């Protein structure tokens, strides 16, 4: 052959150059730049923006939901979707709260509640993988049922859990040094899942399944099992989120999480997850959640009139995804 090399030799260039290059090549770089731009703009617009208290408040606003975002992202990658996340999170609070009020140890109550949420996920997994219904419709039905269960379990009134022992409330309200436990837990979950999703064979199968379910089955992957597990995982993480919310708020609210599903899915999609399955990353999804949350927080901080807030929020969202799209394109 005179001019073409058929097989590329693996690039082993100067490591420092390659790090910058690798950063530029990452799907998430566009989002990071957009968020940075927003931060810089905001720190000029408001002297309070870059204070620790504000950053803490902004982080607290999406940290627990971020755990749900992780579950949703994994599920989306496998080709599913879950509309019930808001209801199931609320149900987790309600079950644990109710058990606690009936005299059960709060830690045990929480464990049982997470178990119950996991069972709900398995239930949805059963309907989608064994019976073959679409995730959308199954999770919609479960969303309604779980909300009903919340109402039934509380009579529609929030359960006051003021009496939760302080060591339990600590997981929701405590801090390690200046950093709230909630934020620590959030980072642990995010980093763990991001790592697993990128590196482990187990989670690689999630990508295969979502990318082309048939080809995955033809590669010997038990695709139904994979989807079953991701569906279950998503609900289990909702359960965990519900418990953290309960510890944080010291109450269980039957109406909690209304409309959460759209927010969570939007975060994942902004972060590069495809609704068709097969692509997405935890890191990206969390950046999506950060973007959404920072925009809302910024508008609140700047005292923008409520009547303008939604318009501005929607426009920033649209602009951000458009810019991100072009950044990715030019990179590609």
């Amino acid at each position, binding site marked *: 052959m005179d001019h073409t090399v058929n097989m590329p030799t693996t690039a082993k260039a100067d490591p420092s150059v390659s790090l910058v290059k690798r950063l530029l090549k990452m799907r998430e770089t566009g989002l990071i730049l957009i968020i940075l731009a927003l931060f810089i703009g905001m720190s000029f617009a408001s002297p*309070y923006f870059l*204070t620790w*208290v*504000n950053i*803490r*408040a*902004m982080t*607290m*606003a*999406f940290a*627990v*939901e971020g755990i749900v975002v992780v579950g949703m992202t994994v599920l989306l990658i496998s080709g599913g979707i879950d509309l019930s996340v808001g209801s199931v999170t609320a149900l987790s609070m309600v079950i644990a709260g109710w058990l606690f009020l009936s005299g059960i140890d709060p830690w045990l109550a929480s464990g049982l509640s997470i178990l119950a949420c996991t069972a709900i996920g398995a239930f949805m997994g059963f309907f989608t993988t064994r019976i073959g219904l679409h995730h959308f419709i199954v999770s919609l039905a479960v969303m309604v049922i779980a909300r009903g269960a919340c*109402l039934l379990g509380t009579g*529609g*009134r*929030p359960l*006051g*859990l*003021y009496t939760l022992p302080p060591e339990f409330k600590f997981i929701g*309200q405590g801090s390690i040094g200046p950093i709230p436990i909630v934020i620590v837990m959030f980072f642990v979950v995010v980093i763990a899942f991001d790592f697993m999703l990128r590196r482990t064979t187990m989670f690689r199968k999630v990508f295969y399944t979502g990318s082309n379910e048939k080809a995955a089955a033809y590669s010997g992957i038990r695709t139904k099992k994979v989807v079953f597990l991701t569906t279950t995982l998503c609900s289990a993480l909702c359960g965990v989120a519900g418990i953290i919310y309960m510890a*944080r*708020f*010291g*109450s269980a*609210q*039957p*109406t*909690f999480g*209304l*409309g959460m599903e759209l927010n969570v899915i939007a975060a994942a999609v902004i972060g590069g997850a495809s609704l068709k399955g097969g692509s997405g990353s935890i890191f990206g999804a969390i950046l999506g959640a950060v973007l959404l*949350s920072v925009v*809302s*927080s910024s508008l*609140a*901080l700047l*005292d923008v*009139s*409520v*009547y303008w*807030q*939604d318009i501005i929020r929607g426009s920033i969202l649209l602009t951000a995804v458009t810019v991100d799209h072009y950044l990715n394109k030019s990179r590609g």
Partner: protein
Amino acid sequence: QADTLKCAPGETYIMNVMVSGHPYWIPVYQGFKQAAEAFGCETVFSGTPDYDITKQIASFEQDLVKSPAGVLLHPMQADPFIEPINRAIDNGTQVATFAADSPNSKRTGYVTSDNLAEAKFAAEEFVAALGEEFEFAVLENPGQSNHDLRVTAFLDYMAAHYPKAKLVGRQATNQDSNAAYRATASIVQANPELDAMWIPEAGSAEGAVAAVLEAKAKVMIMHADITPTTLEHIKAGNIHAALNPNQGMQGFMGFMATFLAAHSDVFDPFNDYKVSGYNPMQIPFVDNGFSVITKENADSFDLNVYMAGRNPS
């Protein structure tokens, strides 16, 4: 500026709510502002446009970043706000609540409508018109505490005082007029003898009236809160009356509670509060009262007329 009831320059009071685009807050904020102006104080309207507690807590905490003198807060839920409210007060920002409370927190005052009184008034009004024996239905909005209270208090009162009146329908419509239409249509179908309906908010009332009119049923409707459409229905006689909390009073007294808490050094009461480290300006409960809107006085409740020439923010 001790010993004076005047704001220092730049002294700011914030009113923080959830679903901040809701028209209910408009007259409340007007009252809040009017009181503030009288004392030379600045005001800010804040909160979250969403029905989302985490967002409201974040917005409340962001308010605190600006170290305002006080915050008049409508906490979406009681207990989740305990810790943020206490932290605010520890850091020198006074907090009073309105329309919903966080009783276990260190907030110094609470201004609200007496939902029990509203419910009692509605019940007596029905009985006055229909006698003690009639069929009635309610629409509700489970999970929304003040709406819940309006309904449960009404039902309890009826059961306790007028056991011969019969509850024949109880449907959740969640402020959605189309859902209210559907539910009311069904209730009216199932109960041709229906005489009365009590609805805890105006959105559902709009749908309910449409259904009742369509079915040509004779139902006496009363509801709480007001919208232009229900106002017109009141004028047209399709709705008997509406009970509307005195929102302006709520805002005005709310400001007073917050402001006084921030200026509590003018006050040295005969108790242990000061020595025990409490703010002496404790106002456990202020009733802002409610108005009964009927054909006769309906014209005074057109919010668009009221707001003409006023600045909403």
